């Protein structure tokens, strides 16, 4: 339980997807123009993460790992292809569910819902999970079961949501500022994200 909580808190603040690893930057910059859509995308990311990560974990430990299917065969080099196939399939499913139950959210997310499939945050979480399985069980980053996976997915999803909603709120205000013409828009956004990342760096000394 203790490990569960520390993994969760760590993945929100210390190992934040955006500020520490730059994962999911493309949709992060493109969809952060207003808070409402940002919130929708953030929730979609949390949901997709929570579904794909446990599935990929089971796939990796039960099917691809050394000696899983056939004695003496290590299929882990196939992990990239299978992970992305699982993610693409699940995103398709989520898209159909959202279209059915919340047409307004579907309309406002538009092109970005299918783009979650190629959102680096989703793929990145699976790849980090693959790395963390091999860590020592004492480390707070260790992932050793489906529940750990869920904690990591929920935590990194929340961290991502926090980052995108924060940036969207700042950008809504920034659009009224008289910045130099060349800096306006993208350049200013990058520098803002940099400053936010610097603020998040103060969590890096956190001992949990």
């Amino acid at each position, binding site marked *: 339980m203790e490990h569960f909580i520390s993994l969760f808190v760590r993945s929100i603040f210390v190992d934040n997807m955006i500020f520490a690893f*730059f994962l999911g930057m493309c949709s992060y910059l493109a969809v952060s123009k207003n808070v409402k859509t940002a919130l929708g995308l953030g929730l979609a990311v949390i949901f997709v993460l929570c579904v794909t990560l446990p599935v990929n974990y089971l796939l990796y430990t039960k099917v691809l790992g050394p000696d899983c299917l056939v004695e003496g065969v290590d299929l882990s080099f196939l992990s*990239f292809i299978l992970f992305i196939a699982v993610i693409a399939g699940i995103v398709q499913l989520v898209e159909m569910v959202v279209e059915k139950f919340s047409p307004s959210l579907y309309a406002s997310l538009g092109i970005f819902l299918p783009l979650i499939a190629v959102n*680096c945050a989703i793929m990145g979480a699976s790849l980090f999970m693959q790395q963390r399985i091999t860590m020592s069980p004492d480390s707070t980053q260790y992932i050793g079961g489906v529940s750990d996976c869920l904690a990591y997915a929920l935590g990194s999803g929340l961290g991502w949501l926090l980052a995108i909603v924060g940036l969207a709120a700042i950008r809504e205000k920034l659009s009224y500022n008289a910045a130099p013409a*060349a800096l306006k*828009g993208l*350049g200013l956004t990058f520098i803002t994200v*940099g*400053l936010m990342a610097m603020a998040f760096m103060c969590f890096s000394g956190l001992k949990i």
Partner: protein
Amino acid sequence: MSNLKETFLTPLGLNNPVAVQVLGICSALAVTAQLEPAIVMGLSVTIILALANVVISLLRNTIPNRIRIIVQLVVVATLVTIVSEVLKAFAYDVSVALSVYVGLIITNCILMGRLEAFAMANGPVDSLVDGIGNGLGYAIILVIVAFIRELFGAGTLFGYQVIPDCLYEAGYMNCGLMLMPPMALIILGCIIWAMRAKNPELQEK
């Protein structure tokens, strides 16, 4: 012929995938703390993009429209797996430094963007040139950011010390902040600022 040249040259400058189209930012920022991984990453992306462009361009008339994204992802994932295995075999240190970011080339938006926008509509030769151009455009930004970060952050280039000892004795210090994630964002922001100041047509209204 002039068309090919244009296809090759615009992604290097005015239509740069990273600085102008804002694609593939994730990996562009994460691997730039040192020059060597940045260059390897740039080259890997160029090779994968060029090959994936050619393959998709050859298949473009046979891929059913509804499943094209999956087909593109599978082609890219296969190429990335090959590159990742090659890196592990011949450049193990760099592959450790790049960690998960090699695998993340699959979800690099430059790839999907070019495959979708260019390779699905053009012949293999054009696509090859377009792939190389965009890959190099990506690599250029990586190298610029990595150069600044490694020079000011560690005082080295490719791991060799370039800032002379006498400067350190005179009180010069490396800026450790340069090696932290936030500076990558701020440097890229400044590069975009500089590019837009020089080319006013890129500015946002």
